[in-house]
């Protein structure tokens, strides 16, 4: 059991920010390289002319998920030390819906908009400005949201536990579903009229 490295003290805490920059660079490079800096490419997923977001997003999720599960199963990584995004049912759904509308309007999500900014997309810069504005509005109006913000708290629940199956089985099913989606997306892509962008 040696991982995660910084929480287990294998790598000193002071290296945290160095890794933040390095990992962030990898993150940015791959996102930009896959075309996430283009809002019309991202939005293509919803109109069916370019499924790149779907493909990249799910490939990344299942790669990381399978990798983490392997490391945990052979005993190299303590799964319980990982930060599991906590589940607030109501605020996750409503926040997700608000983000969905913002996504459809702005064509970016925060991570991709930063990539857009880095390569000079002016719309991405405006999106980032909007982000700051939104966070500021939220923080100022927090008392209004406070009840919703904390509602539906379920703790750090795993989706596999709530479905009553093992992590491995869920990962297997999710992989099958993702592959099914990939083939479906490729099939659709060939039938839908290309959009020039």
């Amino acid at each position, binding site marked *: 059991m040696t991982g*995660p*490295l910084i929480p287990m003290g294998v790598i000193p805490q002071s290296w945290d920010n160095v*890794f*933040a*920059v390095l990992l*962030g*660079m990898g*993150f*940015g*490079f*791959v*996102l*930009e*390289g*896959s075309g996430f800096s283009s809002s*019309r490419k991202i*939005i293509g997923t*919803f*109109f069916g002319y370019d499924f790149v977001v779907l493909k*990249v997003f799910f*490939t990344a999720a299942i*790669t990381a*998920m399978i990798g983490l599960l392997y490391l945990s199963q052979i005993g190299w990584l303590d*799964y319980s030390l*990982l930060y*599991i*995004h906590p589940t*607030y049912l109501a*605020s996750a*759904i*409503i926040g*997700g819906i*608000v*983000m*969905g509308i*913002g996504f*459809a*309007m702005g064509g*970016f*999500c925060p991570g991709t908009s*930063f990539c857009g900014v*880095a*390569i*000079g997309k002016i*719309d991405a810069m*405006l999106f980032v400005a*909007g*982000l700051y504005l939104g966070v*500021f509005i*939220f*923080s100022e109006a927090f*008392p209004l*949201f406070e009840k*919703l913000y904390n509602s539906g708290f*379920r703790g*750090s*629940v*795993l*989706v596999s536990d709530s479905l009553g199956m093992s992590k491995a089985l869920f990962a297997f099913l999710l992989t099958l579903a993702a592959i099914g989606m990939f083939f479906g997306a490729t099939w659709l892509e060939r039938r839908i009229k290309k959009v020039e*962008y």
Partner: protein
Amino acid sequence: MENKKKTGTTYLNPYLGGFLFGLVLLATFIITGRGMGASGAVKSTVAEAVNTVAPSHAEQSAYYSKFVADDAHPMNTWLVFEVLGMLAGAFLSGLVFNRLKFKVEHSPKITSRRRLIFALSGGALFGIGSQLAKGCTSGAALSGMAVLSLGGFITMMAIFGTAFVFAWVFKKNWI
């Protein structure tokens, strides 16, 4: 492994990109024990800015005080550094694939002005939503999915489900 687009720019093969992306995410989890994030960095810069401009206000506000407090600090500065790295990495990628150019990308049917207004308001909505859901597409949905968090899956489905519907509402903006 690379697709040539008619526009002349080259993108990584989506599966290769996704695989590499997954590896970066995996490395993040192995090294730091937590996932990627982007909206958290925005939050901490806003909190920091308000704290510098009006410290008393930041202390009074129920939301800022959560993050101005010392114990919440390290995690947030981590995200700021990560976003700085992201900017550098994306710039590098833009350099490699020859995509560095100032421009506004929009559908030929709309004006740049309209696109920019939509980008700003979309960003604002995303900002509010990400605070409510305690994470955005990268922090909550992607990192959450990688560790099989229920909240991550719910957020992911909510974002993409809504965006799918509303993309058709704003169809004119895009195609």
